[in-house]
């Protein structure tokens, strides 16, 4: 039944495919910079061909005027709800060439759910809990389409990657394994050490934040730490690592430290993105967390970027998702107001220049 619904959505929702569409809105956020008042997007054959404040409507184009906001489709970092139960291969501590993309269930209801929450691009990740769990994948929730089957090398430097009955059982061995593999520089580890393959390193406590930051600095890694809760006292180390931080989800019950740490990272010049972490959290929860951080002092523009452009960038997906720019896929969301206002509703979701959710046809 769920699959049926999904198919129905894909078949029925898009409007008749026009060559050129102009979408005007009171507020246009492009995924970077500041929101543009009275901005417009021109979409041609699924791509953005113009975006900005003064955009003239080409002849013959369909013009849509939206009272509210346009943002890029939200970026859902770290999801596991479209990969079934086989989230991680536990047979070896290091599985650098494993690809979670092969676990993607293309008809998973979760993809539709993400899409309807405005999340147009996600990373699907092997679960954390072993030193190296493989490669994450970049996936468009509409379709779905795998844009990159080797997006990030997923590492875990926290106590969670240490087991009691499998090697490694000690933090020392965990560190040696990863440091050794990066030094040896073979396969995916070599790509990571050469800065070609971004990493995502799970951290859970201060010692792992420190260790991961030092490891990244020593080996010149690109990418992000995954975990912001314990970064408050270690912003200097994180900043020196050159990595961004994919923040732990901030729920309504989050304590002060959760938001203090995120604000401290931003104050220290660290690029942040919110992580989605499904199925533990709903796709809608990212907006809630962003709003809570803004309430605790986070710059609203940084919060918006952390759901779009910055999150994609530090996840290694900056060329594919998160921003609206000329030549990029026209994946965007129409909101009744700022997505940081929880009273704002999501009106329409567009992917590749097609309306895939919402609108008058819904």
């Amino acid at each position, binding site marked *: 039944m769920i699959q049926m619904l999904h198919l129905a959505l894909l078949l029925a929702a898009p409007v008749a495919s026009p060559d050129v569409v102009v979408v005007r809105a009171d507020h246009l956020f492009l995924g970077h910079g500041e929101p543009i008042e009275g901005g417009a997007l021109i979409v041609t054959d699924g791509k953005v061909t113009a975006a900005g404040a003064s955009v003239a409507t080409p002849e013959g184009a369909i013009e849509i005027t939206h009272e509210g906001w346009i943002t890029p489709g939200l970026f859902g970092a770290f999801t596991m709800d479209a990969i079934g139960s086989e989230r991680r291969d536990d047979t070896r501590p290091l599985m650098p060439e494993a690809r979670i993309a092969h676990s993607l269930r293309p008809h998973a209801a979760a993809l539709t759910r993400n899409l309807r929450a405005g999340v147009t691009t996600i990373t699907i990740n092997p679960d954390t809990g072993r030193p190296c769990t493989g490669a994450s994948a970049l996936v468009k929730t509409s379709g779905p389409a795998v844009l990159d089957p080797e997006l990030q090398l997923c590492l875990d430097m926290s106590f969670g990657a240490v087991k009691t009955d499998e090697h490694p059982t*000690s933090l020392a061995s965990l560190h040696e394994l990863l440091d050794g593999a990066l030094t040896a520089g073979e396969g995916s580890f070599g790509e990571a050490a050469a800065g070609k393959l971004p990493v995502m390193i799970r951290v859970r406590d201060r010692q792992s934040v420190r260790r991961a930051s030092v490891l990244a600095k020593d080996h010149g890694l690109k990418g992000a730490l995954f975990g912001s809760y314990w970064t408050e006292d270690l912003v200097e180390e994180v900043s020196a690592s050159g990595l961004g931080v994919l923040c732990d989800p901030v729920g309504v019950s989050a304590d002060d430290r959760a938001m203090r740490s995120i604000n401290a990272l931003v104050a220290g010049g660290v690029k942040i993105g919110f992580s989605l972490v499904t199925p533990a959290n709903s796709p809608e929860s990212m907006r809630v967390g962003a709003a809570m951080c803004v309430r605790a002092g986070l710059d609203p523009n940084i919060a918006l970027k952390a759901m779009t452009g910055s999150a994609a960038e530090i996840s290694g997906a900056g060329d594919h998702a998160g921003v609206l720019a000329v030549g990029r896929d026209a994946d965007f969301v129409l909101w009744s107001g700022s997505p940081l206002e929880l009273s704002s509703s999501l009106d329409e979701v567009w992917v590749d220049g097609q309306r895939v959710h919402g609108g008058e046809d819904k």
Partner: protein
Amino acid sequence: MIAAVTLLTLSLPAAVAPAAGADKLVVFAERAFTAPGEVVEDALITIEGGKIASVKGGGRASGADLKAACVTAGLVDMSFRYSTNPNTVEQSSEVTAHARISSSLDLHARGWERALRQGITTVAAFPVDRNVIGGMGAVLKTGGEATLDARLVRGDAFLRGAMGSLPSSGNRPSGSRPANFYARRPTTRMGVEWEWRKAFYDAWQETQREEDDRPGRKELMSALSGETPVFIQAWATQDIRTAVFLAEEMAAEGMGTMRLVIDAAAEAWREPALLVRSKAAVCLPPLPAAGRTTDGAFMSMDTAAKLHEEGVPLALSAHSGYGSGETLAEQATYARRGGLPFDAALAAVTTVPATLMGVSDRVGTIAKGRDADLVLWNGTPFEFTTRPVGVVLEGATLVGGDTDR
């Protein structure tokens, strides 16, 4: 008479990360126990750059930054267990002599601050005793910036392992296809001893044959030769015997003379002559409430005094205790009540462990050039009415004797 320390700065730092060097600090004490057997009356201790610059008697309290009834060197705990988390030990092999605790430390753990607040400024860190030979232990300060660079006093200070029932717990014989690496030796005490002996023999034979360096060979050879001391946890009599006999067998075979330190040696009092004969030192575990400790070993309040009388080098430990009645100072107090002389009690928590760990050139005594690690007391140390009221770590002041944090 100054009954208690004069608290110049009453605010307690939330986290104990002493600011890098108050450049100069002067501490006054009515009595400074600078080393076992040495007392300086009306002492003025001047600290510069984190080190002790001078100790002078007959001084006046006025003008000193900190004042206390008594001062000792910062306490040293050679069996401190900041964490009981098994993620400090690599259990995929039962002998991991090459593993280094310094790579497994969580310097943000709360245990460090708990130690510092009770006056322990220098500790041994080592893997949890779940392996036969766990690896190389290190000596660290308990405070300061939470980095190894800032806190390490001596890396590879000793080889750490255990006898008794702990290294074999959880293992089982391999019969059918093993589900994990616990299907292995040792499953018994004799298996544990066998692993020790095999490790040393293998290392020694490989060295004779000039074979490839297997991990741990160098560390084991260093221990065999006596260059690096060997700390072996052994609570009960039979396990203490086993440790001593192991060292004696290695010596008899001409493989080397180990420097043996038996940790948690609760029942060392039963056969002290054995320890004297083997020149082994002993570190006692905290006094148990009901007499029995791990492995059923029994110790009482006079255990320390008995060992001291026999001439066994003696250190005391609180392990990870920090609550009321569990601190290192209180272990020394119990030992005093059991008959241990004051100077021997002071030595057991300062100079003896510092010497056994090879760091006595930096810590354990108050003397010019030593690290400025001090405990300020509200009266004579190791009395039930006395407690630490201030701690100085490398010249930085931590005021407040709260241990219940």
